[in-house]
């Protein structure tokens, strides 16, 4: 499989908003590192699922790759070429070839445009994409399972799931090579969720689309992504083949996360791994391994230094001094 996206040690830093009190407090950092050294590869026709703690920087990672968040350091190569940076440190991706589906569907659709207008916008910007925009809009709608009468609706006249499908249609309109989908199935019932994911995997086979899916829905990960990464406080603490990670998580955070997934199995008492300790904030990034204050397997060493990446035959890697056996 040929490589599409290659990211090495990407860092995103935001300044912290603060008033005079913050300026007087010398111990308070004036920035937060939201993405703290992330590396990943996505080949054509391949899907990477990014899961992890809420607030760990998944959306920010996606935004940075789309030139919507400032990049402090790191290399990003897309289809063999290094992505250049603008003066304000934002990456300059090829806007047509990398499509982003935003996490918040309704908020990302302009309220005053009809669905038809929203979906034909990419055709106005890139006229080579469609000879007949009106027809293409209807095709897109049917692709995402919406009937043609949705074309004349405004975003506020859609249910949550319908808005999500319109966003997907809009991302597909630009015929991207890489689709970054931030929570593409949140708010969809399981049947439509299946339709959307099947559609993505069909398109992937047809067009060789590379996909990065950010999701909290652990139930879909094994089915849609051959690779997965688990993010905690700005880093990927474990990544590798989804099948392996689910079967045998090595990082204690991964294990706790996967065990937390609520299930419909009434007769099995879930074996949850309780995480105690406060969820660390970005302003007080813990020393050593960032998970140490909540980790059931913590040892003194974990408080002192950050563990290097360990791996088993290159198919699964983790950053932990005391991984699960």
């Amino acid at each position, binding site marked *: 499989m040929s490589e599409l996206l290659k990211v090495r040690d990407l860092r995103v830093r935001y300044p912290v908003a603060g008033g005079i009190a913050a300026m007087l407090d010398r111990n308070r950092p004036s920035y937060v590192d939201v993405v703290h050294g992330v590396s990943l590869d996505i080949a054509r026709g391949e899907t990477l699922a990014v899961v992890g703690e809420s*607030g760990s920087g998944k959306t920010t990672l996606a935004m940075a790759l789309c030139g919507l968040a400032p990049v402090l350091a790191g290399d990003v190569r897309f289809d063999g070429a290094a992505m250049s940076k603008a003066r304000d440190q934002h990456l300059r991706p090829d806007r047509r070839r990398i499509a982003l589906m935003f996490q918040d569907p309704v908020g990302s659709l302009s309220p005053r445009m009809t669905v038809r207008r929203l979906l034909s916008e990419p055709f106005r910007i890139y006229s080579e994409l469609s000879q007949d925009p009106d027809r293409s809009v209807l095709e897109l709608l049917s692709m995402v399972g919406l009937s043609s009468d949705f074309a004349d609706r405004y975003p506020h006249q859609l*249910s949550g799931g319908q808005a999500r499908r319109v966003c997907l249609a809009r991302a597909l309109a630009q015929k991207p090579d890489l689709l970054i989908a931030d929570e593409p199935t949140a708010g969809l019932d*399981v049947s439509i*969720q*299946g339709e959307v994911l099947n559609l993505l*995997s069909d398109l992937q086979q047809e067009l060789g689309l590379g996909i990065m899916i950010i999701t909290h829905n*652990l*139930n879909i990960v094994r*089915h849609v992504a051959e690779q997965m990464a688990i993010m905690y406080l700005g880093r990927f603490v474990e990544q590798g083949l989804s099948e392996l990670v689910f079967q045998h998580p090595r990082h204690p955070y991964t294990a706790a996360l996967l065990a937390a997934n*609520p299930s419909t199995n009434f007769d099995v008492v879930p074996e949850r791994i309780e995480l105690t300790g406060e969820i660390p904030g970005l302003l007080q990034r813990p020393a050593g391994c960032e998970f140490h204050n909540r980790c059931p397997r913590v040892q003194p060493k974990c408080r002192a230094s950050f563990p290097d990446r360990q791996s088993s035959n290159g198919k699964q890697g983790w950053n932990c001094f005391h991984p699960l056996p």
Partner: protein
Amino acid sequence: MTSPVLDVRRLSVSYQTGRGTLRALRNVNMTVQPGRIVGIVGESGCGKSTLISTIIRLLAPNARIDGGSIEFMGRDLLSLESEAMRALRGDGISMVFQDPMTSLNPVMTIGRQMTDIQHRDNRSRADKLARAARLLERVGIADPAEQLKRYPHHLSGGMRQRVAIAMALMTEPALLIADEPTTALDATLEVQIIHRLRQLQQDFGCAVLFISHHLGVIAELCDEVVVMYAGEVVETGSTREVFLAPRHPYTRKLLECDPGRIEESTRHLPVIAGKLPDLVDLPKGCVFRSRCDESIDICARKPPELEGDDHCAACHVVGQ
């Protein structure tokens, strides 16, 4: 039996659209008993959010209530003056929306919003802030005092949702309505919020109406479940019974599509073939008929009624 906290009877709601009248809810019946947690599941677009907006009377301008009644603790909500309704939303019923930005004001700090909501209280501002910080901590937010100074756009999606949940809990409501409150959260937080809601319900005896597409969450949290399809209630019962022995063909198919139940990894997930009927031009008879494998003659002629004692289904076939 005690009297219900919420009693919805034969509620019908429609939207006026360019194509005609879209009948979003038809003859919906549903009750929530005190201290119970009731889940609503159903296809995207089946009317769950419409039902909730009708209960709290925050309907879109093009919506119309065609009939039916809603009683909250014995009071008829549909005839309440808007002033009284606003007061009720302030402390009797609290709401957590699908999109947290619906309940958060983008130009006010979290702290300001969380103290404003306590305007009936005579406590000092510092006390109110401290109380706000405690609630943020209880929903699992780090550096709560720091977060109170921030604006919603500084927070991640999941953090915003937890702030919205904390705000809804501040007034200790008799009924908490939550429209997909945990979809934006990671599984560890999701479980934590579920337990938090359970605990709240035990501490305050508050009832919860909870919408989610995550069938595992419904199974773990809810005592009862209401299954909706295309604007109608098609099945109700205890969560365990409905999930283990579903009666309506739609419920059965929905459960079969749950990727959480599929052991072997597959690139093609099961789906329910066919589409939701057009709510502007409804078919005669049963709304699920065009997608049902079990339909018989009568299904094309007569819409089935919800029947049964504790575990009810609206289906001619299972009714026989």
